[in-house]
């Protein structure tokens, strides 16, 4: 799916980062992201890779959009895709 999911970088070790998604921490790879990323930054992620650093002025709007998508019923397909994406990174390290 092409939505991707936003998360907050908790820590960075080389090209691997721990990213927090709605309280769930996952490992994400940083080889594809085109800007330096550090703790506290927000990144957009897809199938276990960060693909974009979210500019600070866009973080609130981006998170608000996803919060709304996740408010849907459990059988909602967009919600399912986003939850699937959160799983798209390795488990809690």
């Amino acid at each position, binding site marked *: 799916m092409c939505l991707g999911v936003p998360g907050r970088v908790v820590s960075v070790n080389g090209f691997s980062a721990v990213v927090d998604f709605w309280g769930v921490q996952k490992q994400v790879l940083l080889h594809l992201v085109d800007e330096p990323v550090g703790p506290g930054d927000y990144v*957009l992620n897809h199938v276990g890779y960060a693909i974009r650093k979210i500019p600070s002025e866009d973080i609130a709007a981006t998170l608000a959009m996803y919060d709304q998508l996740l408010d849907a019923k459990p059988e909602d397909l967009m919600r399912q895709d986003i939850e699937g994406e959160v799983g798209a990174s390795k488990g809690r390290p």
Partner: protein
Amino acid sequence: MSAPLRTLEFRDPLKAKQLGARLSEVVDQVGREPVSVMHVCGSHEQAIARFGLRSAFPKKLDVVMGPGCPVCITDVPEVDEAVALALQGVRVATYGDMLRVPGTVKSLGDVRGEGAKVEVVYGIDQALELARATPAEELVFFATGFETTAVATASALLHDPPPNFSVLSAHKYIPPVMEIVTEMPGSRIEGFLAAGHAAVITGSNVFEQFVRDHGVPVVVAGFEPLDILAALVRLTELVRDREPKVVNMFPRCVTAEGNRVAQEQLWQVFTPTGGQWRGIAHVPNGNLRLRDDFARFDARRRFTIDVAKLWAYAPPRLLGQCRCGEIMSGSKRPSDCALFGKACVPESPVGACMVSTEGTCRIWHQYGGHLDLRSVS
């Protein structure tokens, strides 16, 4: 996470109404009907469906979903290759949606049920982990999807994959199929909505050549109802004014140039090649093949894949009635298919469009089965 401060900006009913009225006005100004535009993204169709946007679109506007579901356009022989490998005893890992996609005779899920080693992973990094954990055993990652997943496959192959790991690439590239769909005989598509997050990688510039060659405008759109309505207003304005150009209506995420780092890795590993998209057409440059430098990680060059053996069985009869291809090229709707919601349901799909959460049929089935309320009234 944080409080949704800007909620009303996405869902403000008054704004939606205003945009809907504006859309009607612009479509009227085009002066003919129907005005047909296509989007190429499962997430767009989900958003249109879950908010009932289609019933708010003006009657003269047709918004159709094109070949935007990566699972759906993976061709039957590609699924057959993965199934054949699994039946040959090779361990195959793939994205979960691929399990139930029908091949000529069997799906990966079928052969897993019969004891073949088929693993579901969320991403290629998990497949690499499986390969590293069992170095004596070959592991093939059946890699599907568009630009957004192809960059992950490319990056994984550039960063020290283990020697027992290889990739069966069924990756597809969106821009070439837009040309094919536009050029199809009888095509009425006058404009495209491009998927916001795929364009995060490619940048909106990737569509410039297409617009120059075909004179059809492209608007990059976000995923919220107001994003989609606003993008449709802009797109129909461009149709009205005969002004073929690329407009980025999702600048929060998409830049003109896109993610250069990801693009470099993509083209270092893959090269475009012609290939069949399920039910649609042969698409020149529509498939992504591993370059010769990565031949040792190419499952097609590493194994002799015996697909002919599979075809000794008779193919399932219903598949011949599946209208998936015409639905994905925009010439038919799910409700035009005799199987839709009857012989073909998410629990036992006949065609790939009913399998994936991004498939047109699955989305229509989930949100009520008959989304275009105009044809009901």
